[in-house]
């Protein structure tokens, strides 16, 4: 066991998999050399495994997406890093039309064992091009799994499972959590399943469902509300697509009061789909309208700090929304 940040846990997971399987390679903008990526996730990997397994690419995201597909086809396990999730958009064609369709298109003869890593999320003064939650853009593409860890433990176990997957996994990393979150992480060779949500706190009064930074707000808010006599069930979605319907619906039915939290825009987010699933499956257990807490429906995270704060879901907003639902 070692105390690790979220970022260190991701690096550790990649490092373990690169040591375990020599076909694992990692690349992206500034990923190789001494820099080790814009956030330093891959720092030291080039030195440890050589420049042929950890290397830089040109500033061409479409190429990162396509290279991963090609490497996957010839037997590598490719990890392509997009410097920011915002920059993934030029690669969408490779991700959706090529990577996610490969198994289906070839009747299972070929697969695309790829991990696309994408740092996402706001609250880092990143402005329009460095703060977005683009997971919804790629959400709902059968064949393209999207996962995101919300804790260091899950970060290591999930990246390892993603690297071992024979099909493409889009791995979203919340960049504000990179150094914010610390946890004792086991040295064991464990994996976290790619298709399971996780109940991270049990409670009887309300169910809060979220992922990323806002999940950690919800956990803190749950402790505040506990002092007021309300116990919240908190669920980490983890598997954004496909969604773990069973766990989500179970948790919704347990309390009948559901709050869905995301830092994405309110409408058309992944929470919208979760809401639809709960409405379909749990009507007769619902004790209150399904509520969503999210950013406003404005184009992107603003740069001005006051506006960025206004946009972001924070602990106080989550606490208030949870209290309101508990009292309903």
């Amino acid at each position, binding site marked *: 066991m070692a105390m690790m940040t979220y970022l260190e846990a991701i690096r550790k997971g990649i490092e373990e998999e690169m040591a375990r399987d020599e076909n694992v390679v990692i690349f992206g903008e500034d990923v190789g050399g001494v820099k080790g990526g814009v956030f330093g996730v891959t720092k030291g990997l080039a030195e440890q495994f050589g420049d042929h397994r950890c290397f830089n690419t040109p500033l061409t995201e479409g190429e990162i997406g396509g290279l991963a597909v090609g490497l996957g086809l010839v037997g590598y396990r490719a990890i392509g890093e997009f410097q920011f999730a915002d920059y993934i958009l030029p690669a969408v064609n490779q991700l959706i039309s090529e990577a996610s369709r490969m198994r289906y298109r070839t009747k299972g003869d070929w697969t695309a064992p790829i991990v696309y890593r994408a740092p996402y999320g706001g609250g880092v003064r990143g402005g329009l091009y460095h703060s977005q939650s683009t997971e919804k853009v790629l959400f709902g593409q059968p064949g393209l799994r999207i996962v995101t860890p919300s804790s260091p433990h899950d970060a290591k*176990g999930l990246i390892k499972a993603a690297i071992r997957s024979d099909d493409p996994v889009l791995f979203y990393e919340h960049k504000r959590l990179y150094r914010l979150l610390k946890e004792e992480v086991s040295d064991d060779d464990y994996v976290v399943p790619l298709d399971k949500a996780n109940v991270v706190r049990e409670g009887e*009064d309300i169910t809060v469902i979220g992922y990323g930074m806002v999940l950690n707000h919800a956990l803190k808010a749950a402790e505040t509300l506990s002092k007021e006599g309300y116990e919240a069930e908190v669920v980490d979605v983890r598997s954004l697509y496909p969604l773990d319907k069973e766990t989500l619906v179970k948790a919704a039915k347990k309390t009948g009061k559901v709050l869905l939290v995301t830092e994405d825009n309110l409408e058309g987010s992944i929470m919208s789909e979760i809401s639809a699933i709960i409405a379909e499956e749990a009507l007769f*257990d*619902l*004790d209150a309208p399904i509520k969503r807490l999210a950013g406003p429906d404005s184009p992107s995270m603003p740069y001005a700090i006051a506006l960025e704060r206004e946009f972001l879901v924070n602990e106080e907003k989550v606490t208030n929304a949870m209290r309101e639902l508990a009292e309903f």
Partner: protein
Amino acid sequence: MSIEIIEMPHLGESVTEASIAAWLVSEGDRIEKYDPIAEAVSDKVTTEIPSNYSGIVKEFLIDIDTDVEIGTPMVKIQTDEEGEDEGENSESSETGIETGEEFTDHINEEIVKEAEREPMERQTTSDEKQSPPKDTQRDSDSTTRYSPAVVRISQERGIDLSQVEGTGKHGRITRKDVLAFDVDSQKPAAQQSTDKKENRSEESIPVEAEPTRPKKAAPAASLLPNGDEVVPADGIRKAIARKMVQSSTEIPHAWLMVEADVTNIVKLREQTKATFKEQEGVSLSYFPFFVKAVVQALKKHPVINTSWDNGNIVYHKDINISVAVATDEHLFVPVIHQADRYSLNGLSKEVSRLAGLARQGKLTTSDMQGGTMTVNNTGSFGSVQSMGIINHPQAAILQVESINKRFVPTEEGGFKAADMVNLCLSIDHRIIDGLQAGRFLQTVKENLGRFSDESDLY
């Protein structure tokens, strides 16, 4: 005080040279940071160049309209103070147009800063820990604003929601309130009312007296100073009251009455009742004849067999006739489902069965649900005319009054003794107009007239 140089900034990708089209300040001017100092022209655009410093413009270092390389010193500025502070900016940010790498650096700094300011610790458990949820069951009918969960649980457990205290917002009954409610503490009377959601207070078919079931404790009464007694209504009475208020406030009623000659039915019954009782084990009453006539008429006039639903008219496929059954203590309105499938004998048996269940308190929810029209035997206690209140959400109720012998004129100009009955129909005037109601009653009347002393009961 220090001297700083402003250079020709990067004006875009692939731009290597640019010129100054005009100076926007003069030598010796006092300027503030970000003030525009010049208009620069490249092959692509004209751009205003802001100052990186506050201070005095000392000297222009290049001529107007002369191409110079990007990065060429352009202006000399004498800054006010703290040259170092300003200078720090100048190193990395020429005119604020920066490279991508520098952008991301400040994001990284922000991440580190935030982590130092407010580190968070987590303990993630990887195991699934979740208590199994309760089984769900489909059923819903609520006239008040209860959540689906509250309605379902109260139905499953036989909870009378009027006895549950709400702890939610504005006294709303929450799921937890229902779950925590002690069913055993519920007043027995109220237990019944969950069974009889389609309850009606009106007239009924009296059922032969039965050994009464254990009497419930009389509700505590109080006396007013003038001697009047105030008795709190029990759960059933409250349920009836709610339903009545809903029916009479939501549904605009209209009433019609016709009289029908049922001499032949009286004759038929007189002839057959003894044998019928012997063979079938149940008494033959007049009521099944009326139900039969109504069912046949509903087939012809589907608009009567409807419900008003928020701007829509629901035409019910099944004909389910609600009938009122009274016991000494309570009144029930069980339903003859798919009444069009029964013969007179079948209707007799079904009415008898439902009355028996009512007497024994064994009617189930399904016996009480789904009525699409009510036929009410008000005549059994001697009424000759009444104005029934429609059983919400149905669209009509027919009151069958008492059968009386009267002299009526014959076509030949004489008189005859006939068995006459008044049929009083209440209609939901949102759905049904007088004309349709009149035609429906006419059909009922004809159907009744079609019975003869030869009619088959089976």
